């Protein structure tokens, strides 16, 4: 029986075209992911080369003054791109994956944006997560909206009903075949992805796969429920498309607009202005005030006494430091606000499977906003470490040539935060079960499906 149902399903021209279309677009998404991966890789290799050249060049120009040299020299930190990232590019196209900072004030540097074509950002990436979240449901709807209703409309349902003792089981089998076909398609695309993108077999990939399966099952559950209402094909298709429209466009967009308006971030501009003034006003202030503040932040540098000259690098970097220190409050407020934003959207997303899947896939791929916030944090720590290393050398005016510059390679930050499995899976599992149960009840209510 199953074999026959399968044959019947796969023989239809629409089925083949649909499966082929999704496979092709899935494959294209992998090529785009591959290009993204290569580009990221190239950037990182180039960054290493540039940094080496850049330091060497500047070190040869400013051999006599450590302070002046470090005014110019930039050190780069890379936010590691995992292979899985190519499947869910997320926010990695908006945010820079490499931050280059001098040891001057960090607040003026850490929010520097990537060079971007806003048109690309607006229309979005055609990555695998897009194919999964947008396109797969369309195929699922196309494959299932007319189960039962089509046969009823063409008059063949009565024949089916009379030949089978359990029509409900027959319907389940119809779904079973379709679910298997789509899961097979998903698996094939992911296998190709693993080969093409060198994705390692690890728990991240497994989680990614399971979420994808749950998401596909979610759409089958929705279709199962709609089919259980036993309306005509036109009604089913309109309703299912409306559900799709809601979950993919209207709800996410509405929630997003809500979050943007609920949590505006004027703190960002406040911070920029504050940090500019805090540093620049020190030029016109008593040097002692600046130095006292600097010494109280870093008591270890108290032994460096301000020389009796109009300008000294000790004073200069103390002033730069004040830009950061005195805008610390604004910086903290901004970080808190951004975290609130992220938490609020994640909270709401739990109830909307499309959003939840998107955010979870990005989280696993380390391309979500949380990763970006962490990267900003790490950039600050990286900056602090570099600054503290060089401060004594600047204050001593250590000879530039003595420093082993080759050890300042591009550093890499690896985001190893674990994804909570229950947080990822449970919302989808619950919603799936709810729709299946509702559909089941509908079918059971009407003992005979005619």
């Amino acid at each position: 029986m199953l074999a026959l149902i399968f044959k019947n399903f796969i023989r239809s021209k629409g089925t083949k075209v649909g499966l082929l279309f999704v496979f092709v677009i899935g494959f294209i998404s992998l090529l785009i992911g591959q290009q993204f991966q290569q580009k990221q890789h190239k950037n990182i290799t180039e960054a290493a080369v540039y940094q080496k050249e850049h330091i060497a060049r500047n070190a040869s120009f400013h051999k006599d003054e450590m302070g002046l040299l470090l005014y110019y020299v930039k050190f780069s930190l890379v936010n590691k791109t995992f292979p899985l990232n190519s499947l869910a590019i997320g926010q990695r196209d908006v945010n820079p994956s490499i931050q280059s900072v001098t040891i001057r004030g960090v607040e003026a540097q850490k929010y520097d944006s990537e060079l971007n074509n806003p048109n690309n950002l607006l229309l979005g990436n055609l990555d695998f997560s897009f194919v999964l979240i947008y396109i797969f449901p369309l195929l699922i709807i196309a494959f299932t909206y007319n189960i039962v209703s089509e046969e009823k409309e063409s008059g063949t349902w009565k024949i089916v009903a009379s030949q089978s003792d359990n029509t409900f089981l027959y319907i389940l089998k119809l779904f079973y075949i379709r679910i298997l076909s789509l899961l097979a398609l998903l698996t094939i695309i992911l296998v190709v992805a693993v080969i093409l993108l060198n994705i390692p077999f690890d728990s991240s990939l497994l989680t990614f796969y399971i979420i994808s399966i749950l998401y596909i099952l979610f759409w089958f559950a929705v279709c199962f429920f709609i089919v259980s209402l036993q309306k005509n094909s036109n009604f089913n298709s309109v309703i299912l498309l409306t559900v799709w429209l809601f979950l993919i466009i209207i709800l996410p967009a509405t929630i997003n607009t809500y979050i943007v308006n609920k949590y505006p971030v004027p703190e960002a501009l406040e911070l920029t202005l504050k940090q500019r003034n805090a540093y620049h006003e020190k030029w016109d202030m008593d040097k002692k005030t600046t130095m006292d503040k600097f010494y109280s932040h870093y008591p270890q540098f108290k032994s460096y006494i301000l020389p009796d000259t109009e300008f000294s690098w000790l004073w200069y970097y103390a002033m730069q430091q004040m830009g950061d220190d005195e805008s610390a409050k604004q910086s903290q407020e901004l970080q808190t606000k951004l975290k609130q934003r992220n938490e609020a959207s994640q909270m709401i997303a739990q109830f909307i499977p499309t959003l939840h899947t998107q955010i979870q896939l990005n989280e696993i791929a380390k391309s979500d906003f949380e990763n970006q916030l962490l990267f900003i944090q790490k950039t600050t720590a990286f900056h602090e470490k570099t600054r503290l290393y060089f401060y004594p050398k600047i204050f001593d005016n250590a000879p530039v040539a003595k420093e082993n510059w080759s050890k300042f390679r591009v550093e890499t930050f690896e985001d190893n935060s674990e994804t909570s499995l229950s947080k990822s899976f449970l919302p989808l599992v619950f919603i799936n079960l709810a729709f299946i149960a509702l559909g089941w009840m509908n079918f059971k209510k009407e003992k005979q499906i005619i």
Partner: protein
Amino acid sequence: MSLHVENLIAQHFRKSVFKNLATYIITFFIGILLIYAVLSGWKNYINQNETSEKYQHESREDWLKNPDKNPHRMAHYGNFAFRKSTSLSVFEFGMEPFFGNAIFLEAHKQNTANFSEAGFSNSMLRFGEISTAMVLQILLPLLIFFLGFNSVAAERENGTLKLLLSQGISWKQLLLGKILGIASVIMMLFIPAILVLVFIWLLLQNFAVSFDETLKMILFIVFHFLYLLFFCAIAVLISASCKTSKKALVSLIGIWLVFTIILPRTTQAIGAYIYEAPSKIKFNSDIEKDILKQGDSHNPNDSHYKAIKDSLLAVHKVDSVQKLPFNYSGFIMTEGEKISSNIYNKHLKNLLQVYEKQNSFSRAVSFLNPYIAMKNLSMALSNTDYDSYIDFQKQAETYRYNMAQKMNALQIKYISNKKDKPTVIDKDHWAEVQEFHYEPKGVFTVLKNEIISVISLFLWIILLFILIRTASKKLKAI
């Protein structure tokens, strides 16, 4: 020409639509969404502009408050360019969430536009936003398709089509009548919505609107009107050419998906795939290398600057730069700023060319896809398109360059070469640098830039007339 028959058909269609409860539900729902879209657009606009004005003002005050100091210190103190939205952006957000909102403008350095909405959001933003334009451009066409899929097909299915045609009604009259019918239903939503939009738009500007803004608003309305009519015609044509209403529905849904979801993303992705843009780190490094090739003002042995020094000394017949009648380092910085900003602009031009090429695909596709044509046009009118953003960045860069050179000029004029003389100038000079003011593109520039979209929308309309004509001759009742 009397349209009596067409009107009758349209009336009949309207009646049948309003008999359906679903129509009320959907219409009510889209109405609610429109209200939400307008309100959130309004709030966003006010937020954005108040913030931007507040900080523009604050930063200006800070600038003026600076005490007497060396002009070069002021060039580093710098200014900000904050982006302001135009009134139409209440209805069309366009690329706004992806635009940086502030650029720090200082000497020697072209900074990035920072703090975009997208940089502060998680990937939820990528699903899009609810704006009035989005409802008009994406949801209303779908509503039109839902209303119109069985406009002719249903008549064919239940046999009334033959009756109609045998009573002397021509295909052309039937098609036009049905189009009018759908259009009249949609207008019941569109016209009140537009009235509200216009009212809010006037309110936002205290009823004092410029000619330019008015023209943009009128074009915004007219083009959306044509765009919606266009979808009414497609719905009827497809419905008439399909055997069953189910087939018509599936085809229309397919067209809608391809137009609004699949084509826009795919074409842009292809453009970005073929023309790869350089990363920031490469872009900056290339600029650094080129500047060093031209001459490094920091390097005392640099041949470019040594030549300048020698010629200056020769012309003024002095033996050291301290004896020059003007400030030497100010002069060198003027030269340096000129060189570095020329090089930067050259690289930027190349980068923008890559972006243009990436965008050329979706621009070209507007001939195949009226949605893209409409979207591009409405973004351009509301100043939220790619060109506007580049324009903002260019205006900011011009301002930055002039500010830096102004400070250099002050240094050349007022600061002595000798170290024992004071190195500061009076703070009154700070006001000589005007405040940054962003001027959005005028309506004619917009139309010129978006000529492809305008042409393609008109071509689409012509095509539809031709299609209606051929369809009236070729369609069969069975």
